[in-house]
């Protein structure tokens, strides 16, 4: 009954902060193995919606959620859901790299251990593979014991990506992952994201329309009306970029282009 292609689906999602509406009536679909870019001006609730997909809004008691989000057809907003297991399946990378105050190596092995990977050698293997996958291994293999905070910004962001990947998530949420990085580091991360196409479902919030064009299979455009964010338009990247249905989208894409 459910579309096997459909990985993540939000229906009529509304978010309120302390009673004030922030996002209303969002219906969003992410297809398996594809990259969905979420674009739109600042303050239209893109990041807010993104954080709902792994229930990070639970951390904020003032945040109130209505509607439904289904992962592989399973409702994830119901109470009693194993949130920790969900967060393992749905990884999140934020704008500013946030390595844990641990060593480079333990940033990866530590979450593994607590997600039940019992043998140390297994964890080390997995960590090494993940770091190889993000191209970090060669750069850090001699200093795995150093604090992660000693890495450069781009390296830190790749470490965070590796840390998410090492848990083998089904979905990866990327919240402007390149905006704090220099162009070179940004290009490396972007390439990485592209290389994940097909194996992981990716939702990426970005302000960089060129990046969205380069990466996205699908695009969702958010807008805001009276300070409340909503979904203006969504569709395949080709369709939206070539022939936007909504005049707002058209103006936004054009304005950004000009």
């Amino acid at each position, binding site marked *: 009954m459910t579309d096997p292609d459909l990985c993540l689906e939000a229906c009529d999602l509304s978010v309120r*902060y302390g009673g004030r509406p922030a996002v209303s009536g969002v219906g969003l679909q992410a297809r398996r193995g594809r990259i969905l870019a979420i674009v739109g001006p600042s303050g239209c609730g893109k*990041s*807010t919606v993104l*954080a709902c997909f792994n229930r*990070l*809004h*639970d*951390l*904020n*008691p*003032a*945040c109130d959620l209505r509607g439904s989000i289904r992962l592989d057809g399973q409702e994830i907003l119901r*109470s009693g859901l194993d*949130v920790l297991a969900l967060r393992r399946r749905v990884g999140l990378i934020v704008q500013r790299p946030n390595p844990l105050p641990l060593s480079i190596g333990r940033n990866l092995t530590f979450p593994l251990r607590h997600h039940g990977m019992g043998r140390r050698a297994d964890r080390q293997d997995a960590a090494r593979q993940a770091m190889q996958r993000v191209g970090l291994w060669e750069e850090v293999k001699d200093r795995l014991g150093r604090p992660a905070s000693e890495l450069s910004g781009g390296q830190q962001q790749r470490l965070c990506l590796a840390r998410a990947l090492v848990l083998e998530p089904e979905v990866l949420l990327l*919240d402007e992952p390149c905006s704090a990085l220099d162009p070179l580091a940004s290009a490396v991360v972007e390439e990485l994201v592209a290389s994940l196409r097909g194996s992981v479902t990716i939702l990426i919030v970005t302000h960089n329309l060129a990046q969205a064009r380069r990466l996205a299979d699908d695009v969702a455009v958010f807008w805001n009306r009276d300070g409340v964010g909503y979904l203006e338009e969504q569709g395949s990247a080709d369709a939206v970029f070539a022939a936007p249905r909504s005049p707002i989208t058209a103006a936004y894409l054009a304005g950004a282009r000009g």
Partner: protein
Amino acid sequence: MLKPSSSFHRHPDRPLLWTLRLLSAVAALIVALILLFVLREAWPALHQLGPLRFLHDPGWHPAAGGADAQYGLLPMLAGTLLSSGGAVLLAAPLGLGSALFATSYGPPRLGGLHRQLLQVLGGIPSVVVGFWGLVVLTPLIRQWHPPGQSLLAGILCLTVMILPTTALLSEQAVREVPAESLQAAAALGLSRRATLEGVVLPVARGGLLSAVILASGRALGETMAVLMVAGNVIQVPAAVFDPVRTLTANIALELGYALDLHRAVLFVGGLVLMGVVAVVMALAASLQRSPGHG
């Protein structure tokens, strides 16, 4: 953007939360037990004399028999407030200054040494400070203005006693200022003063206030050091050179020799002291809540 609030998980770790809650309840219970204990001990005096006598009686002669007895606590309350207030007024800026020295103005190596010394001071028993005050400090003050044992000596000794608390906690608070903010300030070409004023102090404000609160509590409750240097004469001082007696010194001086009603009245003094601390804390809490914080 999701606000990085680190507070309540809506689905917190239940066993952990309950363990923490239980142990916090133990801590709260201790407060209740102590309050009950002091109330129980003070009850005979409150019951027989009524609260007004402690305010209105002109003097303090609790051991005199029957109708001759007087139980005025006001001069000692004044002594407590003046000595602690003075000490906090001195120790707070000194603590902040020493924190700034240890974190930004002094060389890092000296900063560490400085902290070590403060920790030593924190572990010196108040008897030792009192002894030093009595032998060294009061004669100096006496040369300036007799009799030497005075409110001033009490303030200075109290300052020495609470300085480690204000200095160490202030330093901790100043260190909490994120490096990025300092960098940002430096990048803007702000002077150290401007950085202090605009970045460090606003961020560290909560911690600094915490330091002052803890230090005030300590100053109000401190006994031996004041007892040995403040002269202990029961009067509202007209100058800093006059001797005073604090509520704590009163308890320590007389409790060992007090019987029945006299003993109960001393506990009323303890109760008054707790009241004073509670008021100070309430003031501090409202300060902490006031706009501009956080």
